[in-house]
């Protein structure tokens, strides 16, 4: 018993200051942000992210700092990461949409109703996976029950149908979220016809544009600019992978 208490005490000593410190960093960062010191706020938020990786709100806050500093490309990248982790949050959706709109892109694919897009992203991918698992488990349980008792056949069929629909939804979301996307982070980057500066430039792409990465050679990435449908090669240093 004494050993257990000692272990709990030591854990508390280690964990509590870390929590307090993370809170302090966030408060400091917010203070910087409110005073318009976005670079300092960014530095503080990035430090906080080291302690809490994959925190969607920290991604969002870092995106805000980049947006205010004029780096809309990096802002889009961080907003996208926040959106992947927490697509239900309206603030994240709003800021991502706004940042994308400044580059001529749209969060909602062309032709898809806004409501449908919101419904598609009502759950995070992890939550959707959990729901899919639950439906699968229940379908299996009732299928077994039906095999043994020849009862609950209709319920088993309904659950099976739900499982199939959820599997389709999960597949769609998984495909969308694992699309090899990147965003133009440099103020302006030239889209060239080949992986090198000796190839002529066909277009100049401003920061904040989403691109789909197709191939990679040395330090060059073959991309398709989503909003314009242009295909070409961009230097890797000018892109931020999402």
């Amino acid at each position, binding site marked *: 018993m004494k050993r257990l208490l000692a272990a709990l005490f030591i854990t508390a000593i280690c964990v509590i200051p870390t929590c307090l410190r993370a809170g302090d960093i966030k408060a400091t*960062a917010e203070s910087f942000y409110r005073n318009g010191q976005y670079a300092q706020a960014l530095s503080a938020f990035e430090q906080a992210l080291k302690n809490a990786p994959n925190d969607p*709100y920290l991604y969002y*806050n870092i995106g805000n700092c980049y947006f205010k500093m004029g780096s809309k490309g990096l802002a889009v990248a961080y907003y996208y990461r926040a959106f992947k982790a927490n697509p239900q949050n309206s*603030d994240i959706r*709003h800021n991502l949409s706004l940042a994308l709109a400044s580059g001529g892109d749209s969060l909602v694919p062309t032709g898809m109703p806004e409501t449908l897009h919101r419904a598609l992203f009502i759950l995070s991918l992890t*939550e959707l996976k959990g*729901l899919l698992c639950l439906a699968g*488990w229940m379908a299996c349980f009732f*299928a077994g029950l039906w095999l043994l008792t020849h009862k609950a056949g209709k319920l088993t069929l309904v659950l099976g149908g739900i499982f199939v629909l959820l599997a389709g939804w999960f597949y769609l979301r998984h495909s969308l979220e694992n699309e090899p996307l990147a965003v133009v982070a440099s103020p302006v980057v030239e889209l060239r016809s080949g992986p090198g500066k000796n190839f002529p430039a066909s277009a100049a792409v401003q920061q904040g544009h989403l691109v789909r990465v197709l191939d990679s050679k040395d330090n060059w990435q073959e991309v398709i600019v989503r909003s314009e449908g242009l295909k070409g090669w961009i230097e890797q240093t000018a892109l931020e992978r999402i």
Partner: protein
Amino acid sequence: MKRLALFLSCVVLSTSLWAQVKLTATTDKTDLALDDELTLTVQVSGANGNIVMPQLPSLPAFNVYSREVSQSTINGKTTSIFKYTMLPRFVGKATIGAITFNYQGKTYQTQPMEIRIYRTAPVTTKGASAATVTTTNHPATSDTDLSQLPPLERELATRAYAHQGQPYFVVAAVSNKKPYVNEPITLTVRFYYSKAFYDAPYQNPTLSNLFMEEAGDAQGQQTVNGIIYRYEEKRYRLTGVSQGEATIGSASVSFRPGSSPLSVLDRFFGGAAVEPEQTVSSAPIKLQIRPLPTQGKPDSFYGAVGTGYAFAAKLDPTQTEAGEAVTLSATVQGPGNLKTTTDLQFPPIEGLTAYPAVPVSNYLPNSTSRSYKIFKTVLVPAASGTYTIPALHWSYFDPQTSTYKTLTSTPLSLTVAPSSKAASQFDFGHSENGSTGVQTIGQDIRYLISADPPAPSWLATLSNWGWLHGVVLAWLAICIFIASIGKKSAAKRQAYVQAKAHLKKATTYEHISDAISAYLLAKWKISTASLPLRSIVEALEKKGVKPQVRQQFSTLWEKLESARFAPAQADTQTRTQFSEQALALLKALEGTK
């Protein structure tokens, strides 16, 4: 004889007609551009033997750079064609005078021809705006009316008197020798000539501390002490760059006096020698550029120097919606090139976001001395209401009075209605007049989220329960296994029940043996149809059927076979006994594990 005399007279008449000289001159065009070329063709027909070249008149408006002579004789008639290729030198109307040809003591002349020379495009000077350079024909100036001329013209005419007696000379004069910095002045260079010349390239004067733009060409005539001079004039606009001394170097013209030069062929035909080239230059001019006074310089002074400026402001449109853009433009017109002045600074207007545009500047149409500059800014009102654009100020320095003067535009009013777009996008509720009462002013990202990261939902937690996959799959496998076993036992149970039912309904011995056969097939997959009795008993033995039961089966099966194939010996009582025995057999077989 009469016939001979008639023949001779005809020969003489035809010879005299044949010997008639004909001189014609044509040009390939009567209208041409300054960078075009003109071909003058002079044709001499009927002149045989050694002939001299036709004499061209003075052609000050052209440079003759190519000559060709061709001669052909057909049936004893000689035709000489002289082709002159010429480049025009000045814009305007040029006259090719009468071309004369002397042959056997007689002089032949052509009619004068008029040629119009146009400029293809306005002349632009590097660093200056596109200006229209015009050519004018000045009225002839006589000795007596100099006093009536404007000062610059009088200065030039007076300088021409200093060269009286010289057949060629160049004079230059400026409108003001002590201009202020950026004050536009005019430089005029004139090439006077009283005799013919050709090949006369012109050399612009060199400048220091001055900015120069071409302002046009002119042609004219002046009588100096009874000698008629024609002149070619070039005008320039000059502005002083900085205070101090400025110099206008010599402008020069190199030319060859006399008529057009003759080629080797010309000399062969008896032409004159080519005159040596001569150069005439204007005297250099020194200017003193005066600085602009710093005292009294207003904030709205952007560098314009001169007189006669006009300034006005305009708003387009004067009524709009919130969030929609309107254009505020201010236009200034005046002497000189306003492009060199700095841009007007629009004052900030509360409630209106300003986006300044690049100003536009050029010379006024049909003017080489006055220009305009339009300053524009796009204004976007944030909210509805009435806005007042304050009066704009634009100052210039008047060199005549040596003072700064300020021009002021009238204040403008802008009426802004609520944005219809904003109302349709953001509907926060209905009001009586249909307006939502909320307007979109601008868009920005939302503020930071200071909350802790959201706790994983129970669904997210479920996704981590991977071990449950195994449990569920195991459950399903067990269920499938159990279900498959149950299915087999059920089939077997069903075999006994069905056989029992068949036995109860059996009316013949065949029915009884069929019921037993169906039972054996369903229970042990033993087919009695293709097997002899001994094999069936062996199969039952393999299935673990006891020997007594096997004996019971053999006895009953044999009796049934006999009854089936000798039905006469059997009766209803016997069949009922067989049924009971068969039922007992099935019970015994059912007891086998």
